[in-house]
């Protein structure tokens, strides 16, 4: 099954290469990877979605912990808020224009660019919601699609 793992790392050159090299070398499967800064400028946070059985996930976490520049590894699969963002450039014809706007509204997506032939729609949410929205947009013709990896945060008082 899929697990969402948050990794706090020292903000140094080469850390991303170290992490991705580790996944490749040990045959772990990355489904998505998102990297960004945190509240501290010397620490970055990676959110990695990885698939595998319990034993594999345990090894993933332990091997990540062995990297010197990795400060903390947490499993955020359960009881967490998860978000992804996607930008979708979709074909627009005058007949379909209002229909697309309506669907976007239902999903609380935003139209961030408008041209004669296309929209760019921005949508955030969990993976299922974005997948559902993309599926709906396919009928109009998706010209381009870009998704960030998933980011995640534990609910309540728990912090990574």
């Amino acid at each position, binding site marked *: 099954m899929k697990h969402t793992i948050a990794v706090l790392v020292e903000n140094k050159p080469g850390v991303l290469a170290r992490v991705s090299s580790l996944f490749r070398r040990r045959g772990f499967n990355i489904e998505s990877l998102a990297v960004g800064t945190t509240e501290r400028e010397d620490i970055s946070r990676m959110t990695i979605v990885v698939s595998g059985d319990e034993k594999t996930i345990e*090894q993933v976490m332990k091997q990540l912990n062995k990297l010197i520049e990795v400060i903390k590894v947490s499993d955020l699969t359960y009881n967490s808020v998860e978000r992804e963002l996607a930008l979708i450039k979709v074909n627009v014809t005058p007949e379909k224009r209002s229909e697309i706007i309506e669907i976007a509204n239902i999903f609380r997506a935003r139209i961030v660019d408008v041209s004669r032939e296309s929209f760019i729609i921005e949508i955030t949410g969990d993976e299922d919601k974005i997948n559902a929205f993309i599926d709906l947009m396919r009928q109009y013709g998706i010209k381009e699609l870009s998704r960030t990896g998933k980011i995640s945060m534990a609910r309540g008082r728990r912090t990574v």
Partner: protein
Amino acid sequence: MRAANAIVKALELEGVEHIFGIPGGAIIEVYDALFDSEITHILTRHEQAAVHAADGYARASGKTGVAFATSGPGATNTVTGITNAYMDSSPIVVMTGQVPTALIGNDAFQEADITGITMPITKHNYLVTDANKLLETIKEAFTIASTGRPGPVLVDLPKDVTIADIEFDYPEKIELPGYKPKVFGHPRQIKRASELIMESERPVILAGGGIRLSNAQKELLRLAESIPAFVVTTLMGKGAIPETHPLCLGFVGMHGSKYANYALHESDLVIAVGCRFSDRTTGRVSDFAPYAKIIHIDIDPAEIGKNVRVDVPIVGDAKLVLKELVNHVKYKQRKEWEDKVNGWRKAYPLRYIKEKDKIKPQFVIEKVYELCPDAIVTTEVGQNQMWAAQYFKVKHPRQFISSGGLGTMGFGFPAAMGAQTAFPEKTVVDIAGDGSILMNIQELATCVDYSIPVKICVLNNAYLGMVRQWQEMFYNERYSATRLRYEGLSFEKIARGFGAVGMTVEKPNEVEDALKEAFEIDAPVLIDFWVEKLENVYPMVPPGAALNEVIDKEV
């Protein structure tokens, strides 16, 4: 202070006395600084050998080994040596020259991305781009290499960084937020382990290389005697307790003795300390110790549960954990089990057929052991390694130095050079095959140059023997590319050509005299033993079989 001088001064403060390496354009500044230092530099003839020598030095002495190489090909030549150290958790620091920072990424002359290349084979590595971070980097490198589960650390030094002018302020301590090895075992887990031990009727201790790394021999022996429990070892753990001790059954696995493999297989409790359950040790992992509960003590949490199921995991330093664990166990005699194991030991000893006119390779090892039981023995890889492990009984783990994880042919000789450098007064013997010795034969020049009196025993069967053995047993004797033909080649002459002593021994009754003579000579000696060509290593657990499926030659 010039950064190159600061580097050398930092090494001095780290207690470095010997460095193995080869200079070059990118690291020339550091070598210039080394010229005025008390540190002895040993100029090897290949960078791979420099790293193996540093590795052998570390294994024999317990100190961190240091190797130098220049950028590009110098650096890439270190790769096998570094991987070897990584697989066997050997503490070494490798420093490589690099092209100036302004040229990095431009495919400059002798540029190679050695930090990229060595990322998966080092415990950690650094490309120093800011001279002001240089000293803290060196401190970190030595700390990381030698603590926790030890391993190789590489520091890549761009040339401009080595000529920068920096303040010499060597840090006493460093702060690594992501690196806190856990050394004390959890008290509750230790309690649980002791309960399992007290319940057990057939306990066996499986000791690995972690015993040597944590210097836990005394603690291990105390635990074994207090339970009491038989001790089997991995190849890396050989000597974890003295091999002549009645509780020691020697090493297990593919070429371990029958009785050691049977004992491990039949045990009801495996107390594994500082080992990683490699496939060569466990045999078919699904049938590993099928009746046993498993206690696994290791400093590396990632090793626990990686290869075998574990009932009681204890993360911590072997020495500290064993010291605590022994306080919780009481002596309990297990007569039936003792008799059973000793029965196996009697029924299935290590054995081979001696012949009057053919030198058996095992016989050479037995003679080396008989004449010099205190020698430090290094091995190459293959049949020579297994016979050495079977027939040379060591007293402590730093006495046997072998490439366990990576299985590097060409390791033994430079490793012997390293061990001899650490202990100039001891006899250091490299047990070699005729295939592997040629992989780093150039180091004879180094040994002669620096008067490093290593003794090389080549068990010459004119084959890549272990591969030939597999071909004989599993590939219908189709000896594809394993015959080594030597028309006109003489190891004796090669040795002499380098200025070392060379000997050839063709008859069993000459073996002892040749060895005696060699041990008397205070110079590097290579003895070419013409051994029985088709001798196989037995017993053998075939690849993919369980330990109790071990086969032996009919005698």
